[in-house]
């Protein structure tokens, strides 16, 4: 087995392309094709999800019907948890807690609407490259490397099926190049049609507590942040891509949810008024798989930054939250001075 720290380095040695620019363009095109394939194809696959010291088998079924996608992701051993994307909502079944978390879908109406896509500025923050790989699952493979240029984001190595652009293996590497997460498909079937039954949950949720995000508030357009609190610093390349209000379960007051993206990684910042009621007790760091979260307390608000980025990145963002300084003139809602201030 390759040493964890070695996989990015090995990629550098093997890649050495004749034209780095060409393979970068090629890699970007593959990333776009992959995003489209994941969202628009019918597929049914078994895979192993592994983090250091832990591995778990899972199944994913993705169904597209009349321009809408439905999905079921289920743990086949261990927790027995499932995440099901229905027509309008995402349901996370947590049988170990007898809870179903419910979140409205934001991509209603259009399959690919407003999905973050690898933009033209991506190569400022990542080194992209592509090359041929060995066959996997009997398919011809192209390997895409997405290596971060700084310590604020993770890197990715993707083994894509040349025929469909579907990832059959993916590895996430941390800021030091160490492998922290792998998804490896052991079976992947692309199907013409998938029945509605195949994306229904198997877990019996009888007696479970259904915990819902307030839909009405979640659908509201952009509103001012709580007390004008905003992250004053975000890493280069991360831009504010969405902002919304929502009532988090267990909290009487709406939380501001700000989403920053660099085209690959996304970071959410939740700003909830009042002392934490059942939420994380700040200051506090948490980790789920390769995702990190950091909570802190700012001006009587609970602030939590969460994302598939290194722990230090969410910590720095959460710690930078403060009242936004007054602006000489009214800026557009989507323009965030702090975000753009750090963008070269």
């Amino acid at each position, binding site marked *: 087995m390759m040493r964890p720290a070695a996989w990015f380095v090995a990629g550098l040695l093997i890649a050495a392309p004749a034209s780095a620019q060409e393979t970068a363009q090629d890699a970007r095109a593959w990333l776009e094709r992959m995003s489209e394939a994941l969202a628009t194809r019918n597929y049914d696959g078994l895979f192993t999800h592994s983090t250091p010291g832990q591995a778990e088998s899972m199944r994913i079924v993705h169904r597209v019907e009349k321009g809408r996608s439905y999905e079921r992701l289920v743990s086949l051993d*261990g927790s027995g948890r*499932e995440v099901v994307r229905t027509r309008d909502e995402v349901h996370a079944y947590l049988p170990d807690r007898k809870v179903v978390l419910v979140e409205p879908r934001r991509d209603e109406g259009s399959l690919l609407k407003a999905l973050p896509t690898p933009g033209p500025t991506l190569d400022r923050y990542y080194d992209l490259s592509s090359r041929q790989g060995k066959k996997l699952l009997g398919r011809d493979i192209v390997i895409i490397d997405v290596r971060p240029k700084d310590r604020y984001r993770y890197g990715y190595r993707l083994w894509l099926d040349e025929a469909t652009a579907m990832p059959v293996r993916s590895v996430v590497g941390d800021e030091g190049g160490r492998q922290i997460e792998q998804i490896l498909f052991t079976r992947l079937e692309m199907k013409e049609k998938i029945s509605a039954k195949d994306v229904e949950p198997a877990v019996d949720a009888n007696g479970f507590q259904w915990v819902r*995000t307030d839909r009405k508030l979640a659908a509201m357009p952009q509103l001012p942040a709580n007390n004008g609190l905003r992250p004053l610093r975000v890493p*280069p390349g991360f831009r504010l891509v969405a902002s919304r209000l929502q009532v988090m379960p267990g909290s009487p007051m709406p939380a501001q949810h700000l989403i920053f993206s660099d085209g690959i990684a*996304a970071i959410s910042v939740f700003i909830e008024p009042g002392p934490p009621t*059942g939420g994380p007790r700040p200051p506090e760091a*948490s980790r*789920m*798989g390769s995702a990190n979260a950091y909570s802190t307390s700012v001006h009587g608000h609970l602030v939590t930054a969460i994302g598939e980025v290194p722990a230090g990145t969410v910590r720095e963002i959460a710690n930078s939250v403060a009242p936004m300084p007054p602006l000489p003139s009214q800026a557009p809602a989507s323009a965030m001075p702090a975000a753009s201030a750090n963008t070269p």
Partner: protein
Amino acid sequence: MTDQIREQLSALLDGELPRDEMGLLMRRLDRDPELRRSFGTYALIGETLRAPGGRIASQSFAARVSAAIDAPQRGVAATPAPAAPATVSVWRRPAVRTALAAGVATAAVFVFRPWQDTQPQVASVQPAPTSAYSFASSPTPAQNQRLASYMVAHSQYSTPMVRRNVLTSLLASDPGITRASYEIEAP
């Protein structure tokens, strides 16, 4: 150092010290340089034991733990809190100095079990909202549920690949979200 304090230090490094004993021990650490040295040594021993194959993951760990405990005395509020949006260089500022620059009166030291066997022992200095030390014990189900809700909401804004990773992580986190922590960055 009494056996009781020795046991408390061990429990602290194992993340098993009851919260009500935490404040007293941290105040004692604050006052007692010898105890701080012992703490650093214990942390190093713990790190060695937990590192894969007994390898010392970071030889400077103990020194950094001690330095972190010393940090509040060295430079409290030496720099006013930055009011304007910062530059990239400020973004890169190490966590310890950031905490001090923010005018934090004291700092809490968190030491947790490593989240995975292959991870080095880690510790963190974080700004504390009051003069009291705090310590994070195991997350409650309510805390885990809130974080899980955040994860589901967050996943809606990711690219399809990252969303799959995020949701897979949510499924794989069993029995719950793992409390993580940070390695101290040298000031």
